[in-house]
């Protein structure tokens, strides 16, 4: 009824008002500028607000100026005034001015021919030139493996992950070192035989074939046997002759060494860290005390002192005549150090598991080991993956410290090339540091993005 009449009333609209475009100053670049930049500095309604507006204006444009001039400086250094080619093979001459004994007319920026000439050193160190394919192969396997693991829809991810954590390190070690390690046959035999015996004893013990004691402790004995077997097998594989030339570790260097140190550190520290984290939360006081002492000790001292210790003091701690590779000593130091940090990361994950999980496991009749293995760790480790990635980023950056004890990692080898008189120019060191900085940045930034992505995925709470 009213419908009918209201339609006829003249002052009522019968159609929608036209949709006007938004005001010019609220869209596009101007709108963005007004909303995101001007809004903090256009309030002059009171004295306080005016002061704050002026402050923001000065801050914004001051910072913008500094930022842009830095950016311009970088662009100028790396592109505009940089030298890109060295067609006549002048080496340092091409990057120095006439006054400095070169051919350039003006002072030059980055000296890219230097990077080109030394690139192989940066990546492989002094690895023999004809054997470089081995390093490449290790790199490629690593890249494929990691991409596979990151890509969530890839098939067999579990198996690839297992491969990367177990077989890959051994294969990489064989490829890089060349095998033919001269271990005493008796040592390898000892590990293999003892490992097999312990393993058998454990298995049979669990089946109640070897009496009370082994029935009760069969699990531990089995694990111990497996550990010995693994050590023995790795030694065995390393000592085979694969027809590869042996490359001593003092020829490893560059990015390759950086990756070796960082990856070994992370792979070795994960199991130790898990044991320590479980120990720190153990009900048994001795385990707790030992874990806390270990963790707090290594976290309390700087890595450089650990490296000094492993390079200077380790030989004194071991029996006379024990021969130890320099790289291996550094790796031991790095692993001991990073496992303390890893333990804290894992502990964070363990603490996040609710008590109900433990109680549920108990209700199902699982014992402490089974609870940890089947209920707690799978959940906890999943939570701490971002933390592990972050620890890895820290470790990756910290590998540069090995240069102080005389190993040539990426930064070490780059610094070492500054001493080459053939390439000594005023900008060589700046160019080298830029390259090193960029490579490290690329790796660390990439990994930190990945860790943030994982965190977001795991983070199911409320977000703003």
């Amino acid at each position: 009824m009213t419908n009918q009449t209201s339609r006829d009333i003249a002052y009522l609209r019968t159609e929608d008002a036209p949709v006007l475009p938004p005001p010019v100053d609220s869209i596009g670049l101007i709108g963005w500028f007004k909303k995101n930049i001007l809004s903090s500095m256009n309030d002059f309604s009171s004295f306080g607000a005016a002061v704050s507006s002026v402050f923001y204006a000065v801050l914004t444009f001051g910072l913008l100026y500094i930022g842009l001039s830095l950016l311009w400086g970088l662009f100028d250094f790396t592109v505009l005034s940089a030298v890109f080619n060295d067609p006549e093979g002048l080496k340092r001459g091409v990057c120095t001015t006439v006054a400095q004994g070169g051919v350039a007319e003006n002072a030059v920026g980055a000296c890219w021919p230097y990077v080109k000439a030394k690139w192989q050193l940066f990546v492989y160190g002094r690895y023999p030139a004809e054997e470089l394919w081995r390093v490449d192969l290790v790199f490629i396997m690593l890249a494929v493996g990691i991409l596979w693991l990151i890509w969530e829809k890839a098939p067999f991810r579990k198996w690839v992950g297992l491969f990367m954590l177990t077989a890959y390190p051994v294969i990489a070690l064989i490829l890089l070192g060349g095998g033919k390690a001269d271990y005493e046959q008796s040592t390898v035999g000892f590990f293999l035989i003892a490992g097999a015996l312990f393993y058998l004893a454990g298995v049979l013990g669990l089946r109640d074939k070897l009496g009370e004691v082994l029935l009760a402790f069969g699990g531990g004995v089995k694990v111990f046997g497996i550990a010995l077997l693994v050590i023995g097998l790795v030694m065995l594989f390393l000592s085979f002759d694969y027809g590869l030339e042996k490359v001593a570790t003092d020829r490893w260097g560059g990015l390759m060494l950086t990756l070796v140190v960082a990856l070994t550190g992370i792979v070795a520290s994960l199991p130790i860290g898990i044991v320590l984290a479980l120990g720190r939360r153990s009900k048994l006081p001795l385990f707790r005390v030992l874990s806390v002492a270990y963790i707090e000790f290594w976290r309390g001292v700087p890595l450089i002192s650990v490296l000094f210790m492993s390079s200077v003091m380790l030989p004194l701690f071991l029996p006379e005549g024990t021969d130890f590779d320099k790289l291996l000593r550094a790796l031991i130091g790095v692993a001991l150090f990073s496992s303390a940090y890893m333990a804290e990361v894992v502990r964070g994950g363990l603490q996040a598991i609710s008590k109900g999980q433990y109680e549920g496991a108990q209700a199902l009749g699982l014992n402490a080991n089974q609870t940890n293995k089947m209920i707690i760790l799978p959940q906890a480790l999943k939570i701490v993956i971002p933390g592990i990635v972050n620890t890895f980023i820290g470790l990756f950056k910290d590998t540069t410290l090995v240069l102080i004890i005389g190993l040539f990692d990426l930064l070490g080898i780059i610094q070492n090339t500054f001493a080459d008189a053939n390439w000594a120019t005023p900008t060589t060191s700046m160019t080298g540091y830029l390259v090193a900085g960029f490579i490290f940045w690329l790796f660390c930034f990439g990994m930190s993005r990945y860790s943030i992505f994982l965190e977001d995925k795991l983070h199911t709470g409320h977000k703003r």
Partner: protein
Amino acid sequence: MKLKQTILAIAGVALAGSLQAATLDDVKAKGHVQCGVSQGLPGFSNTDDAGNWTGIDVDYCRAMAAAIFGDASKVKFTPLSAKERFTALSSGEIDVLSRNTTWTMTRDTQLGLNFAGVLYYDGQGMMVPRELGVTSAKELDGAAICVNTGTTTELNITDYFKSNGMSFELVAFEKSDEVVKAYDSGRCNVFTTDRSGVAAERLKLTNPNDHMVLPEIISKEPLGPVVRQGDDQWFNIAKWTLNAMINAEEMGVDSGNVADMMKSEDPSMQRLLGTSGDFGKEIGLENNWAANIIGMVGNYKEIYEKNVGPDTPLKLQRGVNALWKSGGILYAPPIR
């Protein structure tokens, strides 16, 4: 029971393998000499881009390998920092340390080391930029000095400046590359280390000709190879490897003519090259040990001129390192 015994037996064998035997037997068993060298000092021990070691310290190690195995390539090198070197030697990580190490009484007597002789007579020198117009170290009052934390360099320079009543500033770096860089960029006015080291590091400067080495030598630095105390046989081999090279120069044998000299009638030549007497056997080597050294590595003159002599970038004159006959102080005991 049986199981336990088996395990013990295997463990026993494993342990026995790692127990220390005499150094020479050890070296022969593993098939190479492990030699400690510096982390990079041109002319003494340095790697080229391909990773091959060169230098006078390196050649000494090759000579030892030649004497022991008759093959100068059976040697492996461990680059060591100043801090690590003695621990590396005493822990058995290396068999001989040939790393421009100064022979001092403390080291010889308190650190459990034995110096096998002097491979190079050196002294601490100083380098300054030419633009300072300084001609003598006595004019360096007020200078900033860059050094590499060695063991004696800082002590020597402090003593020198203090005894001359001059003020100075000491900037001490852990790695030699950083010292050179700091000096080159003008952080310091003076660069100091062993004279030979100064000549070597000078090559790394942007404009080597803008810098000069001052005439003063402020310390005695006899550099030589070092072995562990308590193994006389190994000590003898180290000592006589060096003596053989010096004697060879004195007697005019070099890698070129050693084959001819093998036929020499001269009794002292015959003793050196092992064609008469059992001098090699007495120190646990083959009798032609010295002939191997000379043939495969060379006599002292050859390795000097190849690595640090006037025709190399280092351009070091023989000076005191000449034979005693030609006005130097190089004097090796005779082989008889």
